[in-house]
């Protein structure tokens, strides 16, 4: 089947089976390697992208469900020379250890900040809960998000 996808403000025509996970198309067809394959079961969040502004697991998002909703990957926020404030905060806080989870972390956090620019510490933690980091840099990731959300350091959860 042929699908028309809007990814990072660009339109693409993709020829694939209806049940193909969006993740495979982003990486395999469109060369967007920000989203990662982690578990393929919606358990780790490494594949997180935004669909219609919401953070979703692209590994569990069949192509047929995308429709006209806009897809955004970490590449759509900015590149190495043009990082958006959240990407810059992740870099400044050295939030990446191995980095495998980071694109998913940024996309989930950005979805929260787009909806609610000044979330509380509790809202940040609850929103980020689905995404895992096996290196254990959660505290740096939280610091990076707090930096953009302007939550005072050490604010009670």
């Amino acid at each position: 089947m042929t699908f028309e996808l809007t990814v990072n403000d660009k339109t693409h025509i993709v020829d694939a089976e209806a049940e193909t996970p969006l993740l495979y198309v982003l990486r395999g067809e469109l060369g967007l390697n920000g989203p990662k394959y982690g578990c393929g079961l919606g358990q780790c969040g490494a594949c997180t992208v935004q669909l219609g502004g919401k953070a979703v697991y692209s590994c569990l998002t069949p192509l047929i469900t995308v429709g006209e909703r806009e897809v955004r990957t970490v590449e759509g926020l900015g590149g190495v020379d043009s990082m958006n404030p959240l990407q810059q905060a992740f870099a400044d806080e050295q939030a990446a250890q191995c980095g495998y989870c980071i694109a998913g972390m940024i996309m989930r956090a950005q979805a929260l900040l787009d909806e609610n620019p000044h979330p509380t510490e509790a809202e940040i933690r609850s929103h980020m809960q689905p995404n895992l980091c096996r290196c254990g840099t959660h505290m740096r990731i939280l610091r990076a998000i707090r930096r953009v959300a302007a939550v005072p350091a050490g604010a009670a959860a």
Partner: protein
Amino acid sequence: MLAAMAAGVLALGLTWRPTISAIDRPQAGSFPAAQVNQGAILAKLGDCAVCHTATGGRALAGGRPLATPFGTLFASNITPDAETGIGNWSYEAFRRAMRDGVSRTGSHLYPALPYDHYTHVTEGDLQAIYAYLMTRRPVHAPKPDNKLIFPLGFRPLLAGWKFLYLRHGDVPYDSGQSARYNRGAYLAEGLGHCGGCHTPRNLMGAEVASKAYAGGIAEGWRAPPLNAENPAARKWTADSLYTFLRTGVSPDHSAAGGPMGPVVESLSSVPEEEVRALSVYFAAKMGKAAPAKAEAEPVDRPAEAVAAFPEGARIFAGACAGCHGPGAPMMSQGRPALGLSTDLTDSEPTSAIQAVLQGIEPPVEGRGPKMPAFAPSLTDGQVAAVLGYVRTRYTHKPAWNHLEHDVRQARKEGGQP
């Protein structure tokens, strides 16, 4: 006029309850350790912390909202803080609250505190729970104000509710049944207040006694019938109930979703015998479920389902089959096949919708099944299509009607994206 005044005075007289004097908080050391330990177990069996702890809040310090058809109630602080908790409550005040639904200061409590069940708890057990609560660390946490529809903020009305629906007394002992069954009955009807969710409620919010365990609604999820109408494909046994209540998943039935998760978490750490007793009791209640057999093969009709729901079949293949399909890694971990799931055989799609929208959290300390939430990625129509597909594929039941409408409604009520 005089008659009206007399009636008013009489009504106030009937609804009025005295204040029980405040006391100084009892010293923690004044309670025997064994009693406090027993109280800790009983508090788990009564699920006290489930309602009386806010998300991310201190245990038992209250503040958790409970949405009801009558408005939103907030759980009170039951730590022994003198000002905002129950630190200055004597045992007599605590017992009156549990048995009669009256606070220390004499005001009537809403039956969100299930005193219609707690009234059956024995004196010794109430004393142990009191000992446990009074030895917790006091937390200063004022309770948010309830937001109820008019005129339910007027508490004396609750005296009328109690007159109609509050029945005191012990849980009757059935001498034709085992001691274990009777222990299960005592726990289920009293502290466990299982009927609070699994029995339908009337327009006054009271459990319908004639329909005990015929299934109810809890926080948007369906609490399935625990009587002969239980729709499980495979019959529940005392052993499978034990596994379910202890771990949150029975390989032959279902995983605990929504508000059942915290119940399982409580039951995961009480003495085994108590959970065995509950299991024996409910296995007997469901015992007459005629069509279900212990070894029924799970239904699987992919051809019929794909013909009826082609879009649902595609979504299932891409979004669900990685875990629920034959040979998926999850299926080799003793997780129930969809063909055995009560959520799919139920006459209402309520819990199936919630499981797809919200997912399922592992009930016991992060162990157990975790289903991701699909609310952000699937539209109402897509959720309806995939549920139509799985209902046809995995059951012989008639299709659910107005699925898309029900999905939209559930999403709206749950405040989901």
